[in-house]
């Protein structure tokens, strides 16, 4: 008991707050994936690789062409959005009638393609932006501005998507399709156009996440593997396609990783998160917020 009380101090608080900050970016990633799942009923296994491409785009724009970060970020977002739309158009659209598992495996192939494309084109070196944001000291706790900025930007991104989904006609159509995809075509909604738009939004969210992650992490071709699986787990834990569930699950996961990392290595944080996930699958197989059937 004493040992438990000893750790209850500023470090714990710092870890908790860092977890919340991490949760913001994870929630953003989960939102993009959930959106695509909810509307198109497809899981993009290669979602994290889109983020990786976005991170490279940021790196090259900022480091090589000297574009300002705040100019490069929207460009990257647009670029990855286009990538998302292209992914849908080239890979998912021909497979829409195929069993869902084939679509998932096809995006697994795209994962290979993007990863090795990055290896071939950019090499396997670790690269970073070289921007060192100051560290914010608050009492005895330290937070990096990069995380704070990411958290805020992720929140803004999510609010924008929320407004788009609730206040515009297209957004309403997207939400309607996720409820019943057969009937919407009869209501005069062009499902193909909606799918393409949704894919672009999903891509844009990946692009935004890339702009934020590149501040904190080095870019290399396999960076997607370090946060890709966790994003899927968040979506499944929240219930695939359930936006609010994904949002909550992102913070739960981030806290587990952050607190696990406090007591031991970061990997153990991940192990704990994975184990928690599997235990949760026993208890709530259809996601955190699923209604009992």
């Amino acid at each position, binding site marked *: 008991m004493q040992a438990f009380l000893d750790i209850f101090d500023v470090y714990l608080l710092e870890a908790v707050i860092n977890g919340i900050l991490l949760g913001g970016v994870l929630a953003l990633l989960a939102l993009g994936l959930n959106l695509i799942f909810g509307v198109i009923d497809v899981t993009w296994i290669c979602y994290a690789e889109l983020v990786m491409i976005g991170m490279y785009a940021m790196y090259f724009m900022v480091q090589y062409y000297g574009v300002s970060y705040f100019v490069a970020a929207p460009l990257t977002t647009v670029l990855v959005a286009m990538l998302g739309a292209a992914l849908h158009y080239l890979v998912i659209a021909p497979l829409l009638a195929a069993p869902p598992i084939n679509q*998932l495996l096809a995006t697994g192939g795209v994962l290979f393609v993007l990863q090795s494309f990055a290896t071939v084109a950019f090499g396997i070196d670790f690269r970073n932006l070289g921007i060192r944001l100051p560290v914010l000291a608050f009492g005895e706790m330290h937070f990096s501005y990069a995380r704070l900025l990411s958290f805020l930007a992720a929140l803004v991104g999510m609010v924008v998507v929320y407004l788009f989904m609730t206040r515009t006609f297209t957004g309403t159509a997207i939400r309607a399709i996720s409820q019943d995809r057969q009937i919407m075509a009869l209501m005069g909604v062009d499902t193909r156009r909606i799918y393409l738009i949704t894919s672009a939004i999903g891509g844009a969210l990946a692009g935004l996440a890339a702009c934020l992650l590149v501040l904190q992490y080095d870019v290399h071709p396999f960076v997607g593997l370090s946060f890709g699986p966790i994003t899927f787990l968040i979506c499944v834990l929240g219930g695939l396609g359930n936006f609010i569930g994904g949002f909550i699950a992102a913070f739960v996961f981030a806290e587990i990783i952050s607190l696990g990392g406090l007591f031991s290595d970061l990997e153990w944080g991940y*192990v704990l998160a*994975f184990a928690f996930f599997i235990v949760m699958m026993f208890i709530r197989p259809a996601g955190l917020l699923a209604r009992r059937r």
Partner: protein
Amino acid sequence: MIGQGRLAAWGIGLAALVALPFVYRDPYHLHILVLILIWSFAYTSWSMMGRFGLVSLGHGGFMGIGAYVTALLWNHLGWSPWIGIPVSMVAAGALALIVGYPCFRFRITGHYFVLVTLALSGIVLQVITATRDYTGGSLGYTPNRTAGNKLLALQFDDKTTWYLIALGVWLFGIVVWHWVDRSMARYALEAISEDEDAAAAAGVDVTAEKLKITLLSAVMTALAGAIYCQYQMFITPDTVSGIAVSLQMVFAAIVGGLFVSLGPTFGAVITIMLAETLRIGFGTKAVGWDNLVYGVLLVLFIIFLPKGILGSVLDRLKPQRKVSRAHEQEAVQIAGPGT
């Protein structure tokens, strides 16, 4: 049922394969053949589940357990692989049951099942990396060379022995595949993969049938990992575990053909030859190219040829077989969450 002609063809083919290392001794080519056989066994193990719509991305985890448990028991406790391999297989089987039971009991299928198993291979990869004091982390791990009995340590220097071991293991995999193919379980599993509710209504114990095939598949995959470790004498988390290995299995099985016994083997031949050709042709410049080609092929195959090369060729040769295998027309059919 295997006819006389096919049985004879198998016999001749096998005799040729057994005789090969005694006639042809090029160590490099034998090395490639051993790798092909070991990976074929792993891919075959995967496809035993995969052909029934149980697409698992957790097999990288089972393979990692097979390789690492065997090596760790040997290095730290001095247990011979003859004990270590069964222990690792039991460990993988236990893990498969722990993860499989809730999945099947609570009817986690389709996307959910894939992502849960993805978590599984993620866990194994992270555990191996996190326990770097014992496993060497991402730098890899080498079983100690034995000073004593080579047979006891299952460490052989000559390729011919390894070739015969790998051939035996591979043959075992093919035999098990056929055994499943001809068992009642196959019909039960096919029924499940088409419609779980209907299968359950017809008296199929859905959870038990799925668990059995998962257990078998996981245990065999662990064996593949252990054999790979003993052969290569060097393992890293990335080569035997994790999502990349899992995807590689899926890819090879699909390219070769998921629904025919030699499909995964064919997939292994294609993928390994492709990687080796690129490696030799382009040298160090080829880093990444093989996966690039894999990825493009995987996408193209799933779109245009979901039954794989061998599966499609066999179908072309024997159109009458389509009658009894109608469910394969739709490749891996899984009840989506919406149904």
